[in-house]
């Protein structure tokens, strides 16, 4: 047991932060306490006085604690908080059901002909899919390379933004297809039916693919968020065990 346990417990209770973040901060404070304790011992103080002096020096005012919480809340963006929320069993089940529903719906909607109807707007969507895969591979590689737990959440939101980009491109594609069809129909009422059906087919086929790729991006983000949270907890646990 550390001689500073009660001090650290009191400080931890005042830190309104997620467990992993709080643990890492407390371990840092603990190591500084030990360092200061040794320093004061070398200055000739008794053990009791050195421990009391170290605690006094490291004690954090309410203002400093609030500032620390603010700094870490800034670092952890809304997507990170969402990632934490997605951890409980119920959330994981809901996410799984959502994925199954979309995949089943897509299986019904998408067949070989769907790809024949795709418009040129599929290329930006394919590029987004490639970026999602690259992001996933890079993050997984970072996890296996002893990452800095405080910086492991950097770029975690990238798949979400890519997914949002895919949705935007999909809807834009459908909108543009429809607009162009309407313009052509205005000048060529005789071929209106054919033009309209081709536009709707192309637009919706591209939109379905865009939505599917957004779903893939969402799943990638969900997996990475879970891995990140587990990694933080593991690292925090390992450091907290050090005495």
């Amino acid at each position, binding site marked *: 047991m550390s001689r500073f346990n009660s001090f650290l417990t009191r400080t931890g209770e005042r830190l309104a932060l997620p467990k992993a973040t709080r643990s890492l901060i407390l371990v840092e404070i603990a190591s500084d306490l030990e360092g200061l304790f040794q320093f004061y011992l070398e200055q000739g103080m008794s053990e009791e006085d050195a421990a009391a002096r170290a605690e006094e020096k490291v004690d954090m005012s309410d203002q400093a604690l609030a500032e620390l919480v603010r700094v870490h809340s800034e670092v952890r963006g809304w997507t990170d908080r969402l990632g934490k929320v997605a951890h409980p069993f119920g959330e994981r089940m809901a996410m799984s059901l959502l994925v199954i529903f979309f995949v089943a719906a897509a299986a019904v909607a998408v067949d070989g002909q769907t790809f024949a109807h795709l418009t040129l707007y599929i290329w930006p969507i394919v590029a987004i899919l490639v970026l999602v895969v690259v992001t996933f591979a890079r993050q997984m590689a970072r996890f296996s390379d002893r990452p*800095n737990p405080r910086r492991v959440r950097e770029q975690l939101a990238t798949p979400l933004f890519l997914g949002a980009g895919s949705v935007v491109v999909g809807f834009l594609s459908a909108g543009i297809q429809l607009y162009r069809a309407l313009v052509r129909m205005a000048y060529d009422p005789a071929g209106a039916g054919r033009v309209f059906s081709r536009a709707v087919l192309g637009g919706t086929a591209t939109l379905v693919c865009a939505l599917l790729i957004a779903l893939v991006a969402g799943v990638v983000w969900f997996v990475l968020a879970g891995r990140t949270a587990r990694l933080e907890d593991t690292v925090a646990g390992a450091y907290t065990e050090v005495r």
Partner: protein
Amino acid sequence: MTDTPDPQPTATGLELDPQSLARSCHEAMILAVLADSPRHGYQLALEIEDRSRGAFRFNHGTLYPILHKLEADGLIDGAWTAPAGKRRRRQYGLTAGGRERLAALRDAWMTFTALLLEVIGRNDP
């Protein structure tokens, strides 16, 4: 409703409200000490106290928010070190961005102190 204007950087490059000055001063001292070599949090505070001949006594508790903000901004980099047989410790070092920031802060504080001395050093007693 009263509207407080945001503090604006002045000719010195520093925001002159007391809170910003204090923050900038702490930041400059921490970056300057880390420019020499990486250090642990408590070593930083002791070094600043030593260099200032006891004038700047850092409560270590106030150091953590500053260090963690500097790290989040990419100006310093923290890493856990584990000397043989000793407790793991968090050590901070300066990044390239931190060096640039330190140079900018040095210039700003030089200008600030020079201008301040211009004002208060005119009349000899």
